[in-house]
C-alpha cells in the first residue's frame, strides 16, 4: 500500500534521513522505532507532504506521490496524526473535526462513530480545543484524522506526554482503528508498547534502518532490548 524507496531528507546542510526504504502492506500495523533525532518525524512529514524529500520515491497505492503538496496527498486517503497533536487551539472541538473533514462533508454517521469511540469529545464538542487536557487533545487529534476516512493513518509519537493509563487507551484505540480495516504506520519511542502492538517494525538510527522484522521477534532481540528497553 505504501512503499518508500531510498528516501533522503535534508534541512540545509544537515541530512536527517539518509536513505530509508520500507513497505507497509494493506491492513498492517507497521511501527518505526528509534531514539530522538533518528529521522522518524521527518520521514512521516515527508510522506504526508509537509516536508519535501531531497531524493527517493514515495509510492502510495501504486501512485508516485513524492513531493506533492500535503493537501493533495491527504485527498488520496493518507493522513497523519502529528507529533505534539497540533489541534487547532482556538477552534472548538467540533470545528476541529470539521477541519479534519475539510475535503468532504462531515456526515452525521461519522460523527456518531467518532463520538462512540471518544465519548469525552461529545461532551466537550463546543469547548475550545486548547482548553482540553493532553489526553483529550490526543483523542481529538486522532478523531480529526479519522473523520477524513483515511485508508492509511500515520501516528507520530501518540504516547508522548501522556499518563500510562492514557497510553494504554490510545494504543487500544489504534488497534481498534486497524481492525476496522485502516492500515497503520506508527512512529514511537515507547518501543515496548509499539512492538507488542505492531505486525512488523523498523528500527531506525541516525537516519538509516538498522533492523527490521516482526514485532514479536524484535521484542526478543537482545541488541534491541539493550538499546531501547533498558536491559
Amino acid at each position: 500500500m505504501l512503499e518508500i524507496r531510498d528516501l533522503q531528507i535534508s534541512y540545509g546542510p544537515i541530512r536527517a534521513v539518509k536513505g530509508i526504504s520500507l513497505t507497509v502492506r494493506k491492513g498492517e500495523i507497521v511501527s518505526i522505532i528509534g531514539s530522538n533525532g533518528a529521522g522518524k518525524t521527518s520521514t512521516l512529514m515527508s510522506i504526508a507532504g509537509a516536508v519535501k524529500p531531497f531524493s527517493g520515491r514515495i509510492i502510495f497505492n501504486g501512485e508516485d506521490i513524492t513531493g506533492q503538496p500535503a493537501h493533495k496527498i491527504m485527498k488520496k486517503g493518507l493522513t497523519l496524526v502529528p507529533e505534539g497533536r497540533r489541534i487547532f487551539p482556538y477552534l472548538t472541538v467540533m470545528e476541529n473535526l470539521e477541519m479534519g473533514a475539510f475535503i468532504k462533508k462531515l456526515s452525521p454517521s461519522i460523527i456518531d462513530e467518532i463520538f462512540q469511540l471518544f465519548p469525552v469529545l461529545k461532551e466537550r464538542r463546543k469547548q475550545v480545543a486548547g482548553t482540553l487536557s493532553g489526553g483529550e487533545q490526543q483523542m481529538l487529534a486522532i478523531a480529526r484524522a479519522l473523520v477524513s476516512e483515511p485508508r492509511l493513518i500515520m501516528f507520530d509519537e501518540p504516547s508522548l506526554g501522556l499518563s500510562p493509563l492514557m497510553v494504554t487507551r490510545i494504543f487500544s484505540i489504534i488497534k481498534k482503528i486497524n481492525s476496522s480495516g485502516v492500515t497503520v504506520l506508527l512512529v514511537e519511542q515507547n518501543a515496548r508498547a509499539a512492538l507488542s502492538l505492531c505486525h512488523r517494525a523498523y528500527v531506525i538510527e541516525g537516519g538509516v534502518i538498522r533492523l527490521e522484522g516482526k514485532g514479536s521477534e524484535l521484542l526478543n532481540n537482545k541488541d534491541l532490548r539493550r538499546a531501547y528497553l533498558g536491559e
Partner: protein
Amino acid sequence: MFLQQFIQGLTLGYVYALMALGYTMVYGILQLINFAHGEIYMLGAYMTVISFGFFTGAGLTKTHLFLSLILSMLLSIIFVSAYGATVERIAYRPLRNAPRLSPLISAIGVSIFLQNFVMLTQGATYKVFPPVFSNTGLTIGGAKVTPVQLTIILLSSVVMIFLHLFISKTKTGKAMRAVAQDRIMASLVGIDTDRIIAITFIIGSALAAIAGFMVTLYYSLINYYMGYIAGIKAFTAAVLGGIGSIPGAMVGGLLLGLIEGLAAGYISSEYKDAYAFIVLIIILLIRPAGLFKRPMEEKV
C-alpha cells in the same frame, strides 16, 4: 461640541476599522505587516472616482444616482480585490518560506510601486469626486449627522457583521482561522493553504476598497499618496486592538477614530495626524500586545 466631534470621530473610526481588518487578517495568517495595504485603499478611492466618472459620462448618474454609487463601489471592490490577489501572488507568495524580513521589504516595494504607478497614470494632482450628497443632514441632540456620515456608519457596520459571520460560520472562514493557527497542520488536514491565503488578501482588499469608496464620498478629494497616512493610522488601529485579532481591529479602529475626533475638537485640529502616532507610541510602551491579545497566543 462633544457629540459633534464624537460623530466625526466615529465616522473616521469606521474607515480605520475596515482598513485595520485587512492588516490584521493578513498578519494573523502570514505574520506579515502588509505595508502595501494603504495603497490598496488608495486604489479603491481611484477606482471609485474612475467608475463614477464613467457612469457620469454614460448619463447614468443623473437618472440613477444611488445605483451608480453602488455600481461604482462594486467595480472598485472587484478591481481592487484583483489587485490585492495579484500583489499576493507576485510579491509575497514566492517569499513564503523566506525569512520574515523579505516579504516586509517586498511589501514596501509594492507600496512605492503602486503610488508611482497611480501618479504616472492618473497624474500627481488631486482628483475631485462631485458632491452628490446634500450637506444638511439630520440633527441629533444639537449635533449634525450628514448623509455621508450615516452611510459610512451603517455600511461599515453591515460589512463588519457579514465579515464576522463569514469567519465564524463558514467553512472557508474556519479554514482561515485554522491556517492562522497552524499552517502546516492545516495543509495536513487537506486545506489548500495558498488558496486560503489568497482569499484572505482578496477579503482584506475588498474591505480596503469599501473604505476607499467611503472616504471618497466623505472628503471628495483624493490623491495618489493618500494611502500612506491612512495606512499608518489603520496599522496603529490594528496594533491598538492587538494585531492578528479581528475584534481587536474593529474596536481599535473605532477607538482611534474617536481619540482623533475628540482630540481634534478639544486640543487642536492642527495636530490631527499626530494623535495616531502618540497613541501608537503609548500602546507600544504600555501594552505592546494590544487590547485583545489572546493570553496563550505565544507561538513556538
